[in-house]
């Protein structure tokens, strides 16, 4: 019986990094990136390259692959300082936070040499090809097929809600490679070159009017055997690992940006002379503290290689709750006139609805918690 668990600790080296990074960020103020989609992407790629050239990207990756050979706590320092500075976020987060660690855990040395270095400077962007029209929450229903042909897989099918597919060079995708297989068996994790013949990307507008994700049509797309990650048929395990990497650093960055938004809201409430907001704001602030503590626990577990299967679903469920509660409270406190305008607050209220959907819905997270943390079997329906 124990109440307390390990949490993330920062070393003296981390604190030196923090000071250096903070100074660097102050001296390299780039301001808000443009709003227009293409101009924004160009600016964000340039920003990631600048950070990489300064030595701040891939801190926890081995030196031989272009990283700094430090620990995950150094990455946490970077994520915290970047988010705290209000400078733009990294455009290649899928590559950096999920693909690079995935390749370190499951990839071949050749794959690591080929793919990790271009991730760091934003030279090659990545997207994640999991969801399909018939496989949203039920990811094991993936039906995009890979047909073996000599030394390659020939892939046909459709992915959807693929973030940044329009600008990505590579797609980390889950496909069904074993004929006659069903559910979690027979799936293979592949790296698809988005410049290959047969790849068609059609951007979709979100309800928040962002051009953030796309449909990806794959028509007889060739993937060489060397671009299969892990063993053919072992794709489910690798995909689940990839989802768990998403939680730690990604959620830490989200937490800090949400903290900024709460502070902006407080400032606005004070400016507008709104009264009686302390308990609503305090509730969200307390939830933000819980989220930060939860992320630190996850990062500590990831750093020691002892992540309990299913535990990161707590992070995702809590993130969705805090995110939605913050913008819901803002909506209520800022009053009916503010609610009618197209502002950053109403935009973020709309965006907040996506948080309990993307990367595994809150319902799926609850299924995972029930089955993997509580050991309840057969509660999926």
């Amino acid at each position, binding site marked *: *019986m*124990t*109440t*307390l*668990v*390990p*949490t*993330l*600790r*920062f070393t003296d080296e*981390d604190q030196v990094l*923090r000071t250096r990074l*903070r100074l660097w960020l102050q001296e390299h103020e780039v301001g808000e990136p443009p709003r227009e989609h293409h101009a924004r992407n160009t600016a964000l790629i340039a920003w990631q390259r600048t950070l990489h050239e300064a030595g701040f990207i891939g801190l926890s990756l081995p030196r031989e692959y272009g990283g700094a050979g430090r620990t995950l706590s150094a990455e*946490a*320092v970077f994520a*915290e*300082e970047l988010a*705290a500075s209000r400078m733009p976020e990294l455009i290649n987060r899928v590559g950096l936070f999920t693909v690079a660690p995935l390749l370190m855990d499951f990839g071949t040395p050749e794959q690591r040499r080929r793919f990790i270095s271009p991730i760091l400077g934003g030279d090659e962007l990545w997207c994640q090809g999991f969801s399909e029209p018939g496989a949203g929450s039920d990811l094991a229903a993936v039906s995009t097929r890979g047909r073996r042909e000599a030394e390659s897989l020939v892939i046909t099918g459709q992915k959807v809600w693929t973030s940044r597919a329009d600008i990505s060079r590579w797609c980390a995708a889950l496909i069904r490679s074993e004929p006659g297989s069903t559910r979690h068996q027979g799936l293979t994790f592949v790296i698809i070159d988005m410049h290959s013949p047969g790849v068609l990307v059609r951007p979709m507008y979100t309800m928040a009017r962002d051009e953030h994700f796309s449909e990806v049509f794959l028509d007889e797309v060739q993937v060489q055997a060397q671009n299969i990650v892990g063993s053919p048929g072992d794709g489910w395990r690798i995909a689940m690992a990839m989802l768990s990497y998403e939680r730690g650093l990604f959620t830490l960055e989200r937490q*800090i940006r949400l*903290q*900024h938004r709460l*502070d902006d809201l*407080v400032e606005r409430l004070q400016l507008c002379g709104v*009264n*009686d*907001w*302390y*308990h*609503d*704001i*305090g*509730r969200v*602030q*307390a*939830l933000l*503290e*819980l989220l*930060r*503590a*939860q992320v*630190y*626990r996850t990062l500590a577990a990831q750093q020691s290689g002892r992540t309990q299967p299913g*535990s990161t*679903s*707590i992070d995702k*469920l*809590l993130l969705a709750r805090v995110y939605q509660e913050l913008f819901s409270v803002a909506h209520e406190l800022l009053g009916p006139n503010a609610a009618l305008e197209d502002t950053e607050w109403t935009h973020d209220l709309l965006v907040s609805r996506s948080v309990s959907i993307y990367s595994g819905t809150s*319902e799926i*997270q*609850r*299924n995972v*918690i*029930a089955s993997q*943390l*509580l050991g*309840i*079997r*057969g*509660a999926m*329906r």
Partner: protein
Amino acid sequence: MIADIEAIEDGLDRALSSVLSLPLLLEHAARDQQMNVAAEDVVRRVGWFVVALEESDGGIGLDAGGLISVGAAAGRRLVPIPLREEAVAVIPLLALLARRGDHQAAAWLAEALEGHTRGGTALAPTPAPHGANGVARDGASTSTLPAWLPPDASLIALVGGDRAAIESLPSPALAIAAVAALDPGQGFSEVSFVGDESKLRWLEGPDVSLLLRRRRAFLVGEAFGCAEKCLERTVEYARNREQFGRPLATFQAVAHQLADMTMQVESLRSALSRLDESWRENDTETADKVLIALGWAAPAFARSVCEAAIQLHGGTGFTWEYGLHLHYRRALQLEAAFGGVRGSAAAVAQHHVATGRRPADGK
């Protein structure tokens, strides 16, 4: 360090479970009767009354993590509130006064550790934060103060905000009346000032502030323990209870509620761990921030988990004999102890606004 704390928590939990059985707790609640002397002696022998004392004062020198863990054991086993308050408020305050050279307090401390002098706690008023609708941070209105007193109390500690006072009873400055309580068998009373409250000898300073923060750390641990126990009982029940030919837990509607309860319990565990870590690292800025956040979150989540537990047990959960209501009553008491839902949330906002808002620094 966590391993040491785990051993203490485990040992204490086993010792408490041998005394505080569910039938006994139910009987005390039904009769609005406090624990008998024999049972208290057992609690005393496991070192309960020195849990919050420094080693130099005869205690075991538990740090914040230790107090949180002992608090969690208290929440699981529903240690009576007067016993909690003696351990985390009355006795440490006497020790503090003794360290300041107060001979009377030193004498009371020696008697209290032997069980010959008993004391309870009242929640004293603190200035209400702006926007908190006049609800004082530590749960008291200014006219009457909620208090929890053992039957033969000869001392009362008044705690609130960053100040505390200790008075011997009967006191010409205080009027005390027993009141029927939501949580019976806990010596609930109402205390009112006779004349000017400034007649009391209020103690302030860093040592008092630290003592009160340690008490709050214990209380948020207790709320966690309360929630964790309810979750544990509910998971077990839902696994074993069959309806429509299968275990309740296998219905998604039930499993999802269990998952939400787990999210609440585990996120509290994470925050308690961060509180412990920042305290041990002397990072008081983070420790204060997390402790204040837990002042809202721990009782609020404990209450929510208890309510879900009652719901998922169906009719069984609503019975007296099953006893979930005891945890629910405790969660509500803890909610009030931090100023109620709105008061504790307002305190979080007030602290955040007052202490600046740059959220990096690993904090």
